[in-house]
Every structure is written in C-alpha cells, then in structure tokens.
C-alpha cells in the first residue's frame, strides 16, 4: 500500500475564507491523501473542520485524524524570547505544521516535541475491506 502526502503551502489557503480552507483540506483528505499544511488553522476553524468532517461521514469516509505541531514559548534568555515573539508577530498562523489524515489510512497521530508519529491502519485489514 502506498501513502500519498500532499504538502499545502500556507499561501494556498491564506486568501480563502474559513469554509473555503476547510473544504480544500477535507477534499484532499477524502482523496485518501495525507495533508501536510504549512502553519495551522485558527481554533474555531479546527472545531469547524471537525463539524464539517462529521457531516461528510458515510460508508466510505470514516473521518480524519488531526495533529498540529506548534512551537511554544521560548524559555531562554530575553533575546530568545524577543526573537520568538517577533517571529510569531511576523508569521502568525504560518508557524507550525498541521497534519490531516483520512481515518481509513491514519489510525492515530502521536505528537512528541521532536517527532510526530503517524500510526497507519493495518494494510492487510484494508485489503480485506476492499475485497468486500
């Protein structure tokens, strides 16, 4: 089984409305691709993404797995904090990475400060499902 990862640069969603962003990302996930979005959605958009996902669930589409990695506050010296604050001020929601995977492929997303783990569903199980 092959996995397709589709990178979505932030500037591709920047000019879209919240609904437009959600529809674009969900459309890719529904094509059985894993979305790697540069940056992150707003918290309200994340909730809206879950809501829209629920509306779309059917026998073929079981939903999504969602994971957001976002650098936290710097705890170093003042200069580091200022630097981090400036980067956030300049980049806003561009900072971080959002992963959206179709539930039929991604079983779980585990986050760790240094890595992100995508646990995929058992390929043999997927094979069996397709035969039905």
């Amino acid at each position, binding site marked *: 089984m092959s996995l397709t990862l589709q990178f979505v640069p932030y500037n591709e969603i920047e000019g879209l409305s919240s609904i437009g962003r959600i529809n674009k990302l969900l459309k890719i996930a529904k094509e059985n691709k894993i979305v790697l979005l540069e940056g992150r959605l707003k918290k*309200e958009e994340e909730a809206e993404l879950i*809501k829209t996902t629920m509306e779309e*669930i059917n*026998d073929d589409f079981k939903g*999504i797995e969602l994971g*957001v990695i976002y650098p*936290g506050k710097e705890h170093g010296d003042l200069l580091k904090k200022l630097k981090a604050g400036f980067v956030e001020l300049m980049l806003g929601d561009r900072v971080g990475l959002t992963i959206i995977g179709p539930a039929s492929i991604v079983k779980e997303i585990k986050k*760790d*400060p240094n890595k992100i783990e995508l646990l995929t569903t058992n390929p043999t199980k997927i094979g069996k499902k397709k035969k039905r």
Partner: protein
Amino acid sequence: MPKKAAEKKRTEMIGEDKKEVGFASFNILRKFIDKVIGSIFKKKKHIKLGLYGPPNGGKTTLANRICIDWLGEEMGSVSAIPHETREIQVKEQVNIKSGKKELSFNLVDTPGIATKIDYEDFVRKGIKKTDAKKRAREATKGVIDAIKWLDDMDAVLVVLDATKDPYTQVNITIIGNLVARNIPVLVVGNKIDLRKADLKGIEAAFPQYDVIGISAKLGKNIDKLYEALFVLVD
C-alpha cells in the same frame, strides 16, 4: 516522559492557546454586562454548565453523580461502548451548596467529540450492522450539536479519561475553543481509581488550567469538584 520533553510539550500547549482573542471580545462584553446587571439585581447565580470531552471520558457518569447527589435521580445511560450519549441532555435547576454558598445551574451533558466515527467499530463491539450504522449516524450528529452548543455555555468541565494520553488534538481543540470564547474551563481527570490513571500527565499537558482528579463512578474527590465549581463561576 523525560522532564525536558514534558516541558517542551507544555510550552507548545501554551503557544496553542495564546492567540485568537479578538473574536472573543463580544463575549467579554456580554459577560461584563451580565455581571453588572447581575450585581445590580443581586440575582442568584444561574448558569449553563457544560460537560465536554472526548468519548468515554465519563461525562455522563459525572452528570449522573451530580444529579444523584443534588436531585436524587440519574441523567442518562452509560456504556463501555463509545458514543452512548448521542444527544445533548440538559438537566435544569441543579442547585448545589457548599457552606453558605449556593449555585444553581442547568447541567448540559454533551456527546463526546471525535474526529472519526466508524460504524464497524460498533460492530466489533457486538452491535448489529444496521444498529451500528444508526449509532454512527446519530453519533456524528451528536458531535455537530456539541460543537454548536459551545457558544451557549457559561462554564465548562472538560472531562478527560486520566488513563489515556491527554495530548490529543481533540482535547487541545476543545480547550482552545473555550479559551477563544472566553468560557471558564476546569479540567477534570476522571477514573483516578484506575491503576493506569496519570493525573500528573494531564496537569503537565494543561498547566495553565486548574485540574482536578476524580472518580465519577466511585464519587472520589467529588466534594472537591463542587468546591472548585464555585471558584470556576465566581
């Protein structure tokens, strides 16, 4: 988890929540007006208290515990199979007392919020296929309703299963949305009676919130939870 790693995760969580303030300004204004009017008329506190969280965290068990303690009756059915609560349930006029203080609220038990629902998971738990499909349909609607109701809450208990990993995006999204709406949050780590429970893990995941560990099933620490409720809505 290594201390350094836990610290870094913690800082990520803080970073998640510190934005999205602008949209909440209307809510702040509304709550301020409510507070001023409330103090003028010295009205008794009466709020909508929501129970939110992922499926099988123990929201309905907690709702039942509160209702039995103060109303003498249960609120809803509980099950080991996820998504047992698929409709918003409201119990009106729950009055709780602590010393001379009194608090009256409508208790709102919500369906567990999830990003995926597969009817085959229910089939594997022994539910017939047609019933499983119906359960899945109702569960998806339940999640939608739970999210829609977020705006109506005055205070929320986020009920998490203390035996599970707290660093899930659903937990972060729920809490982030409450913060963005300026709704007071108390994080409740449920099932602390179980050996695998890790309340410290929840505290490390959400250091900027009050966390209270309870066993809704056995009633452990429930008095502490009631005391915390007064602080939450004060």
